[in-house]
């Protein structure tokens, strides 16, 4: 799928007053789905809104589909679809009315009725936007982003506040877009969303990209996998460590709760269980934890909560 980058950001800096929101950020996104992942305030929205042409970089360059989003906005706008984090609709407009309107601004829009059906917006009926549920408002914003048949869609936290069904429906649509050759840039702080959907993940923190790669690559790098088991307290961890291959660590975290960190494979599992057998230990609740994107994310961005 890799070809010409659809988004190319180089050394982007964006400040609001004295606060630096984006601090020398580099990002290249190819065709397919790219997830921009990061804690709140990391600079995700600022980066995406710069790509959409809303903000002028203080320094650095941004190219979207090869165009300057500010200076070549007129050329770029028909080719992209935008879903804002919230709002964007006349408070008195009905869902179908607004969607039909956005469709009319495009030369070859999607079939509006089919899209309404697809996203379950038919039940909105004659209700005005301000009286729709949060989930309905989100789905309408998503529909407005795709109705013009764009080459590239920007989705800013598309599933924030959605119930599981609506979230699935959104994911399915993103997969269909990708399958039909539409590129997608989405911001999220749901790790599972990035893992499910993205070909590529860029983790942003403090206004910079701190990790970039496919979900698999990101999970392979960084910390290793973990094996946990419970047994009687006070086992000889040093002896266990001797039995393990080089590079592993073993520790008793709380009395009776043991953790082995290393390259967890069938051989390692066998080594641990046979060591247990030799020492007359019945390992209770033995478990292997796959390293998820969430672990990578927390490791890179720190575990403390930030607002």
């Amino acid at each position, binding site marked *: 799928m890799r070809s010409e980058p659809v988004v190319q950001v180089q050394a982007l800096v964006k400040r609001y007053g004295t606060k630096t929101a984006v601090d020398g950020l580099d990002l290249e996104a190819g065709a397919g789905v790219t997830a921009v992942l990061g804690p709140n305030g990391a600079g995700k929205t600022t980066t995406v809104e710069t790509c*959409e*042409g*809303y903000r002028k970089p203080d320094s650095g360059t941004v190219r979207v589909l090869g165009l300057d989003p500010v200076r070549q906005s*007129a050329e770029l*706008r*028909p*080719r*992209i679809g*935008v879903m*804002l984090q*919230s*709002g*964007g*609709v*006349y*408070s*008195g*407009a009905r869902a179908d*009315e607004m969607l039909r*309107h*956005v469709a*009319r*601004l*495009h*030369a*070859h829009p*999607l079939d509006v009725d*089919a899209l309404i059906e697809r996203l379950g917006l038919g039940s909105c009926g004659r209700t005005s936007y301000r009286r729709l549920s949060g989930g309905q408002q989100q789905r309408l914003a998503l529909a*407005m982003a*795709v109705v*013009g*048949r*764009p*080459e590239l869609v920007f989705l800013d936290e598309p599933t924030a506040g959605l119930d599981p069904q609506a979230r699935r429906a959104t994911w*399915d649509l993103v*997969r*269909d*877009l*990708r*399958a*039909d*050759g*539409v590129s997608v840039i989405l911001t999220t702080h749901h790790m599972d969303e990035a893992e499910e959907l993205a070909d590529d993940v860029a983790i942003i923190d403090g206004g910079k990209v701190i990790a970039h790669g496919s979900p698999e690559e990101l999970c392979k790098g960084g910390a290793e996998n973990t094996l946990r088991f419970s047994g009687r307290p006070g086992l000889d961890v040093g002896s266990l460590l001797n039995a393990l291959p080089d590079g592993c660590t073993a520790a008793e975290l709380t009395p009776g709760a043991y953790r082995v960190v290393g390259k967890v494979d069938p051989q390692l599992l066998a080594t641990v269980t046979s060591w247990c057998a030799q020492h007359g230990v019945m390992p209770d609740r033995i478990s292997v934890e796959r390293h998820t994107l969430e672990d990578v994310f927390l490791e890179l961005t720190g575990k403390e909560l930030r607002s």
Partner: protein
Amino acid sequence: MTTASGTYAPRPGAAPLPRMIAAQAALETRMLLRNGEQLLLTVVIPTLLLVLFSSVDIVDTGKGKAVDFLAPGVLALAVMSTAFTGQAIATGFERRYGVLKRLAASPLPRWGLMTAKTVSVLVTEVFQVVLLTVIALALGWSPHGGPVAVLLLLVLGTAAFSGLGLLMAGTLKAEATLAAANLVFLLLLVGGGVVVPLDRFGPAGQHVLGLLPISALSDGLRAVLQHGAGTPWGDLGILAVWAVVGLAAAGRFFRWE
């Protein structure tokens, strides 16, 4: 679910510009006509004032039939209610709710959006003028003067009030715009020669108030429609200055989000 069906295969393109502007203007007009508060401002209040003050002798409107004095003033008020108050409030909330932001990412250019807003204001004004004229005629109004001068006054008045309304909507918070636009509407209704003749405010007051866009518009319309004057250049000049200053300031200071 994830097989490529081609439904979403990219086929980007902007609709032709006239079609975009027409669609935008139609939507803006529908939103306005659907909004109860806006209708109160643009239709109900001018109609009530016209009917009430023509049939009950509350203010001394000078010599002649009251309706001959009131109809031009109420037409000026109608222009102000749509181009200034209504447009300021609607645009302020569109800005607040991200509508302007979202449309800025659509193929419709910003000037196209502004053109559509102007078309929507003009359509509403045509509707108001027709309605108020019919009511005034039923109340015994006998207008004089040439239609060209009247049209010129209405268009320049619309430009002046649009500039001021958009300036307010594009710089203040939506709630502040709502409050300020209504307050200004009320103050200018009283002090702008709409239903109360300006000479009630004394010579000095009359001079200062006469420079307001609403006074220039109501005075100009009255000169033509009540007294059969030719082109009221003085009033047109005042409106033109307000239009240039207001639109330039709106263009300079308008913030889209």
